[in-house]
């Protein structure tokens, strides 16, 4: 944790989001912005989602919360109450960005829609992250992760190899919300560039459905073709995911001129270690085509390869892949990632102090090694209301008595 200047050190962000948008503010905070997470009194609901520190279910110990709120300060404020709304509007005066993920229309109903915020601060950029966007017939629909997969990434889910079972999503934490958070920063930064030129803020309307509509569906657009679920244009059954001694690796054979760089070095390694038969030793990779070969040929080479892989660990295969320049990669677990020599060498991991836990926790850090201003985790996620005094008294000049009144009224 350092005090380096970041790309966004000049800016302040007010973060009103729930689970859908927290990642946006985290990324902006790691880029140096002064991000103030505004929680409802008592703390945001997402603090009740796990996993938890040492499995202790406690709103101050959610590892999910920790991971989504690095580099933010935190205050509690009930913007549903008029006194709370007044405080919020005072904060907007000094803000460059407001991020929110309420149901469309809610901010307007409180009198803090973009048209209202613009009057308070014409430069402010309002970033709104919602399941289906601010407009359209589904704008009021609910959008948990699974629903966003279906209605946004459905065409992609249908490419997964799961024909005898229902389509699945990626397990655990909502992937679609990570995409939304990242995309929201893209939109916010585009708006910031516009502001840099014109001096004007605006609203950035982020639809999670659109964020995860990345899968190209031009084959339908161009040829009116819809593939059967889990199938590809390749008539052959070829293996991509292989068991090895301690897990799985990803590898696929390709032929033609490119084989020199992919299949040949692996084949040589297999032969060198005694797993290739005469047929394999004589095999012509230049002529091989993994679309137009025969299933018999593919099955035979895959059998030999499988026999070889199961004698090696993931890290042995990765070492060989690097040495011989083979496009083979392990299917990493969390443990593998923490032990990765590459991520270590890149200075990826960041040890973040959690004094109240009397502990230091290792976090995934920067996504880019920028030469001047790399992203940096500047502080752990805020405790509930941790910076109330610092911000309400220190910055807004609200007296202790008034703060007590606001607290008694349930506003902060």
């Amino acid at each position, binding site marked *: 944790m350092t005090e380096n200047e970041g790309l966004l050190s000049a800016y302040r962000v007010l973060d009103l989001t729930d689970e859908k948008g927290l990642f946006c503010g985290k990324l902006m905070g790691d880029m140096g912005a002064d991000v103030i997470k505004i929680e409802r009194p008592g703390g945001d609901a997402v603090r009740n989602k796990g996993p938890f520190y040492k499995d202790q279910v406690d709103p101050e110990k959610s590892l999910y919360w920790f991971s989504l709120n690095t580099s933010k300060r935190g205050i509690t404020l009930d913007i549903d109450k008029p006194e709370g709304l007044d405080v919020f509007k005072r904060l907007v005066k000094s803000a460059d960005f407001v991020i929110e993920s309420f149901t469309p229309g809610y901010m307007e109903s409180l009198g803090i829609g973009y048209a209202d915020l613009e009057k308070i601060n014409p430069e402010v950029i309002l970033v709104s992250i919602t399941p289906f966007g601010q407009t359209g017939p589904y704008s009021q629909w609910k959008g948990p992760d*699974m629903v966003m997969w*279906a209605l946004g990434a459905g065409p992609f889910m249908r490419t997964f190899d799961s024909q005898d079972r229902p*389509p699945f999503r990626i397990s655990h934490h909502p992937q679609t919300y990570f*995409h939304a958070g990242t995309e929201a920063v893209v939109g916010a930064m585009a708006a910031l560039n516009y502001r840099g030129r014109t001096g004007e803020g605006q609203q950035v309307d982020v639809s999670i459905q659109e964020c995860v509509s990345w899968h190209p569906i031009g084959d339908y657009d161009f040829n009116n073709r819809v593939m059967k679920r889990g199938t590809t244009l390749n008539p052959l059954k070829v293996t991509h995911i292989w068991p090895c001694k301690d897990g799985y690796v990803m590898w696929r054979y390709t032929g033609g001129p490119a084989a020199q760089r992919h299949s040949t070095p692996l084949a040589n390694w297999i032969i060198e270690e005694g797993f290739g038969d005469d047929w394999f030793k004589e095999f012509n990779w230049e002529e091989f085509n993994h679309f137009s070969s025969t299933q018999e040929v593919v099955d035979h080479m895959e059998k030999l390869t499988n026999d070889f892989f199961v004698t090696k660990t993931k890290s042995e295969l990765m070492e060989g892949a690097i040495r011989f320049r083979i496009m083979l990669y392990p299917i990493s677990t969390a443990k593998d990632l923490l032990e990765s020599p590459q991520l270590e060498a890149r200075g990826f991991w960041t040890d973040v102090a959690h004094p109240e836990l009397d502990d230091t926790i290792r976090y995934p850090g920067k996504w880019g090694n*920028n030469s001047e201003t790399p992203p940096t985790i500047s502080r752990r996620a805020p405790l509930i209301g941790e910076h109330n005094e610092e911000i309400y008294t220190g910055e807004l000049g609200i007296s202790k008595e008034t703060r007590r009144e606001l607290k008694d009224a349930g506003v902060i």
Partner: protein
Amino acid sequence: MGNLPLEGVNVLDFTWVWTGPTTTKVLADFGATVFKIESDKRWDVWRISPPFKDDEQGVNRGAIFNSINTSKKSVTLDLSHSKAKEIIKKWVTWADVVTDNFAGGAMERMGLGYEVLREIKPDIIMMSSALMGQTGPWHNSPGYGDQLSAISGLHEISGWPDRIPGEIGFYTDFIAPRFNALTILAALDYRRRTGKGQYLDCAQHQGGVQYVAPSLLDYVVNDRIATRQGNDDDYAAPHGSYPCKGEDRWCVIAISTDEEWSSFCDVIGNPDWTKDSKFSTLDSRKANREALDEHVASWTVNETDEDAMTTLQNAGVPAGRINDPRDHMDNNPQMAFREFYQEREHPELGTYRPPRQPCILSKSPCEIKRAPLMGEHNESALKEIIGLTDDDIEELVVEDILH
């Protein structure tokens, strides 16, 4: 000045395949002038890979190429030729941003690394999106998005607990472009304020791993290794994909509150099984997922996916049809309303429908132009930006550099 956020920003783009072009599509759609430098000596694979329009092969006919290269211009240059490199060096004085997504170290080997470019243009912003970054023991490993998803921990948590990891395609290809784009955009604003350019060594791996952060902390703190759990969710039941009327039609349902559960029971007519104490609380529903899923499916199977979704959502129950490409493009009232896919004229395709950017800026929304034909802007760019004459260009053609 026009109304687009990146009006006046100039980009020299060496990227190919997916992640790089998707990154520079963001810049181009938001108004930057992006020149894609390409060559038939080193094909952008999506120029020459199916699917093609009417299944007829052609470098300007690829479905994916034309979708992820909108709003750009194309110039063909054979960079193995020293004269081409000289042109590029002149071009750099015009550029604000230079982008590539080769394996680490490739631009340097071509003599076009950051240090060289900075000599020419001190405040240049260069963004390299290598799989593993430009440094470290694995920096020059090439690869595709499926391999990167594997090593980034995403396959391990995909699929069914009783099976090998499920295939999730080129998943991280959809992550890296966003990190690339937001970093470039922030660096442009930083340069505007400070005058400083910089080198943005964005590793696709380091972006991908962000998306498993909570599970990484779970391992660091609790020594627990997250693995795949099908469609189960710790905070919802029912939660999954349920079969509907028709072939391979599905509706997902995800119920996390008692209120949603009670609305769901109302929608399906409160059959007797819903009153069973096995299903009365979230915890009991989670403990009896298998029986619960069978009951839920016994209702969905007699509904169309669309009816199930609409009825449930109108009652406040989270549900959604698993769209196939046709549903997504042509039976999608929400995205149609918001004009996500936008019809454009194209000289070889007739019309086609590329996507816009997935966020709408109220004052300066993106503008989508069709993708360029291969080499379409050779002459205009070389004349206007590099200052070449007709004779100079003729010479380059004779020397076989413009391809």
